Each structure stands twice: as C-alpha cells, then as structure tokens.
C-alpha cells in the first residue's frame, strides 16, 4: 500500500515537471522568422556631383563603403550592393534625367531598399598631418526617419595613405553605429514599423472628407481616424494634415507580425484592411502600394 502511494506521487510529480518543460520548449520553437529590411550603403553627393563617376574616381569612398558593408557582414547581415545596382541601372538605362539627386532617389527606389546608409568621407591635409572624417547616417526610406548617426575620425597622421585613414575612420565608429541601429530595430519590433497612408478622391468622386457617411452619419475624415485609432499598432499614428480633398497619415505604426496568426505582416495586408473598411462604408476605393506608402483613391 505504502509503495503504491509513493510510486503514484512520484509519477504525479514527474508528469508535472514534463508539463512545465514541454511548455517552455513549445514557446522556444514557436518562433517565426521575420522578413528582414533591405539595407543599402551609398556615398554622399553634393548638389551637381555626378554620382556615377564619384565612386569610380574616389577610392576613399569605395573603401569606406566596403568597410561599412563588411561591418554589416560581420553581424551576419547582407546589404544590397550599391555599385552593382548602379551598374545595372546604367545598363538598363534607368536614368532619365541629368539631375543627380534624382538619380540617387531612383536608385534607392529601384533597389527596393527599406533603409539606406549614407557615408560622407572628408579627407583633410594640414601641417600637422592628414586625417579622414566620416559622417554616417541611416534613414528609413519610407518615412525619412533617422535611425543612426555617427561621426568617425581616423586621427591625424603624417601619411599620404588616405585609404588606410578611411579604413580607420570607419573602424572608429561603425560598431557603435550598428548598435544604435539595432536598438532602433528593437524599438520597431516592440512598437511597430512606420508606413504612410495617403487618402484622396478621384476627380469625378461625389465624396469629400466632410461627407457624412456610414450608419452613424459621421464625417468621412472622422470615420477614418476612428478606424485608424483601432487598427494602428498600439494606437500609434500621426496625421500630417486633413483637407476636404485629402487626408495624409505621415506615420502609422503597423506590427511586424500578424497579432492573431503570428505570420509576417506588411503594408499590403494593412492596405487590404483599409480597403475592406471603405467597402464597408459603401465607398468604391482603389489602393496602390509603393514601398511603405499606401495610396487610397476613393471613386
């Protein structure tokens, strides 16, 4: 009898432990890999500078860019190769204008990069030696939000080897630069990523933002804001402005993963929800998605 009780209690205890361990394992194995952002490292260009020849003529810039990409590689992250994109853009005659800043924008758009890192290399020569300064800035393409900013310095040396100085300037700040970027990524994981929502009307549309629609006959702009309040991640959104013909949300947070299924979430899925909302109001919307910007046109 004693033995039976004892064995029974041991079995009970073991099964309790298995239950706890089993829960831990399933939590750990239930991770969904999130789609990573595309990052491109580009050189800084002044107004009027030829972006196509600037890299070919300036070895310091090429070294700086390669060193920055190397730092990303060390962290196990693959960047979009700017030089390859530049060549492919040239081969495909993508550039249609002589305006250099437009070319930069075109490359960023063509590459599909979510984030671009801009590197400005400043070489100086003085009586006390030579030095290279580096200004690194990371931007989110969709919103223009700054993700990380750092200034690196090589220190001053009696040398003409600017390539080595460029290398040293990158090494002096790139780790810290990546650490700050990672802390911003962690913030995106916790608080959602930014998208822009642009709502306008077709030329022949009978509706305006002040049109009273829906079962509760509220102005359309208020209906939209109420929906946004419910659907933006953690109620986080910002209205840039509202007129009778347009409403722009310049920063709407959406989650990286679907809150109910745990699958990856993207602007396209958010646009679909928005599309359904307008349909529900009895409107005829058209949606267009370009990167992280959603354009809704009400017919």
């Amino acid at each position: 009898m004693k033995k039976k009780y004892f064995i029974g209690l041991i079995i009970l205890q073991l099964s309790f432990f298995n239950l706890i361990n089993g829960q831990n394992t399933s939590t750990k194995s239930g991770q969904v890999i999130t789609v990573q952002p595309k990052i491109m490292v580009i050189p800084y260009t002044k107004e009027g500078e030829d972006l196509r020849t600037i890299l070919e003529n300036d070895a310091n810039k090429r070294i700086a860019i390669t060193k920055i990409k190397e730092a990303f590689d060390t962290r196990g992250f693959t960047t979009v190769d700017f030089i390859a994109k530049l060549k492919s853009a040239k081969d495909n005659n993508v550039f249609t204008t002589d305006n250099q800043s437009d070319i930069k924008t075109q490359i960023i758009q063509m590459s599909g990069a979510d984030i671009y890192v801009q590197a400005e290399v400043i070489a100086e020569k003085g009586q006390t030696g030579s030095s290279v300064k580096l200004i690194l800035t990371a931007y989110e393409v969709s919103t223009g939000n700054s993700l990380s900013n750092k200034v690196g310095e090589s220190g001053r040396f009696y040398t003409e080897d600017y390539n080595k100085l460029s290398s040293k300037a990158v090494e002096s700040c790139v780790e810290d630069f990546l650490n700050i970027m990672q802390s911003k990524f962690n913030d995106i994981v916790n608080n959602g990523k930014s998208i822009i929502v642009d709502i306008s009307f077709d030329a022949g549309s009978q509706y305006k933002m002040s049109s009273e629609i829906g079962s509760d006959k509220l102005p359309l702009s208020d209906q939209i804001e109420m929906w946004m309040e419910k659907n933006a991640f953690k109620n986080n959104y910002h209205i840039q402005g509202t007129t009778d013909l347009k409403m722009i949300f310049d920063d709407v947070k959406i989650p990286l993963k679907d809150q109910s299924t745990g699958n990856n979430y993207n602007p396209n899925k958010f646009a679909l929800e928005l599309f359904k909302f307008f349909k529900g109001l009895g409107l005829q919307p058209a949606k267009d998605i370009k990167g992280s910007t959603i354009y809704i046109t009400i017919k």
Partner: protein
Amino acid sequence: MKTNKLLLYFIFAFILFSSSCSKKTIPFASASAEVNFLSENDGTITMRALGIGANESEAFTNAVFNAFDVLFFRGLPESQQKNPLVGTNESEERLKNKDYFDNFYRSRFQTFVMSQIPTSEIISLNNGQKSIAIDIKINLTALRKDLEQNNIIRKFGF
C-alpha cells in the same frame, strides 16, 4: 494512522519538488563595477576591471565577472560598446535566461577571455577582503554571436 501516513507522503513529495525547483546560486560578481575601457580592435575589447573577494582567487574571478557584467548589463563608455549587449534590466534578464547565465558563469565565460593579466598586487581591505585589478581582453564578436545563437539577444535586424 492512514491519514498521517498520507500526510507524510505529501510532505516528502513537497520537499522533493521544492528542492528540485530551488534557485541555484549564480556567481554574481561583487557589487563593485569598477571597469574601465582600455582599447578595442577588430572584434576585441580590452578593459581594466577591479575585483573584490575573500581571497586572491575569488577577487580575480570577481574582476572577470565584473568585466562581463558591465558588457552585458551596463555598456562601457568611451568604447563602441556604449549600449549593454543584453539590456539594462539586469535582474529580469538574468531570470529570463537563467540557464544560459548559470552555465556561462560556471565555466563558459573562459572561452571568451583572450587574456587576463593582473595589473596590481593583491590589496587587503579594512574589512578583511582582498582586491585586485586585472587587464582583461574579451572576444566581443564571439560573445555577441553566442548571445545571438542562444536567443538571448536578437540578430542584427528585426
């Protein structure tokens, strides 16, 4: 009589359960966080750390633990690792990843130490404890990768 026996079995089972669940002591470093940045190069970081302990050996080990603690939970000003590798909420992070940190401070920390050289004589403090300063060089790239592989921190990206 039968009820007493049953009660005894339950007490025995409870003791067995609570002993297996009890917290194992993490070898926390001493409260001192006197760790200063010396240099860094290509994935390594060198620091000067102070350790206090009951004897020379314990003081030395605590200096090493202090160096790792600062990298994990404080960040090191003047270096490129200004942000902590793991997070500032030390107690929560230790509790969340108890197995990893138990195992790390038991023996694995040694695999990330490239060199550890005493830079001071052992000093006897007023309270009878000993203090020592060491220069310690840590393989930061490998340490970060290890934290990533064990899901303590996120890999670069989302």
